[in-house]
């Protein structure tokens, strides 16, 4: 069984995530999410108002990145805080149970 991740390390991960460009990140893949003729890109600072997509930050491109890489990186921006919150919730639950 591996050693538990320390709270310090988890805090470092959270700070790293919080320091990245703000807002929602979405991968938009050529021919899948937008029409052929536009490079695959990660849109950052995305917000949706009614049925309109708004962008507040510049695009992010990967050199040599696969579609899976684009999807992974863009989702990580949203997934990491979710996972950290889940770890915190479970640790709190564990502590309460063990008390």
């Amino acid at each position, binding site marked *: 069984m591996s050693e538990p991740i320390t709270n310090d390390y988890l805090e470092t991960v959270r700070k790293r995530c919080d320091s990245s460009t703000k807002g929602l990140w979405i991968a938009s893949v050529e021919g899948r*999410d937008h*029409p*052929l*003729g536009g*490079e695959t890109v990660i849109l950052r600072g995305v917000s949706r108002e009614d049925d*309109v997509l708004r*962008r507040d930050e*510049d695009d992010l*491109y990967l050199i040599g990145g696969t579609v899976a890489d684009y999807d992974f990186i863009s989702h990580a921006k949203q997934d990491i805080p979710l996972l950290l919150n889940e770890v915190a919730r479970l640790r709190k639950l564990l502590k309460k149970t063990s008390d």
Partner: protein
Amino acid sequence: MAVGAVVDASINAYTQYQDTGHINWGEVGEHAVQGALIAGAPFVALAATPVVMSETGNSLSLAGANTNSTGLFNAGQSLNNVSSNVAAFLNSPISLPDSALVCRGGTCLASQFAGGTGVTVEADGTMSGVSVSSASNKTIENLSSPYLNNQVGVTTAGQIRAAGGQITSSPIGNPYNPYHASIDGLTAQQLEGLFTPTIRNPYITFINMPR
């Protein structure tokens, strides 16, 4: 009935493209319905005489239709001819004038061209199937409108040909990019040279959701 719908919708799509440089698919759908409704009767007028598709200027014409014909027996065959001829015509390359602007969304760096969807790279480094937007008499705003990228590269069909490449308009089959065209025969470095420096995508402040 279905043949009539295909013919009418196809002609409408082609005529729209030639006239305006883009295709309103809602209008095409309306023509498909109209074509289906009329196919059962007046289209027999096309029977008994060979139907030849030809491009005359900016319009598509059906030559050889005998409006006096009542050859019901041959009607189905003639409609099939019309349908296949229209399909073949629509699939044939549409030429772009040298002055036509050509846009690609993104950084347009050499490193990005090879990763484009549908792109193949030959042994000599030249590429085939590089997707772009291009159409006659269309502005950068028009041509960049299908893209989500903040920046776009712009060149002309003439500059692509001058560099030794070919550009083929192919909007049919690309309903989400009515200006779709493909570039063949240029290397990634040549393409970067043609499309950079890029400019801000003039269409990007507020855009509709892609899906």
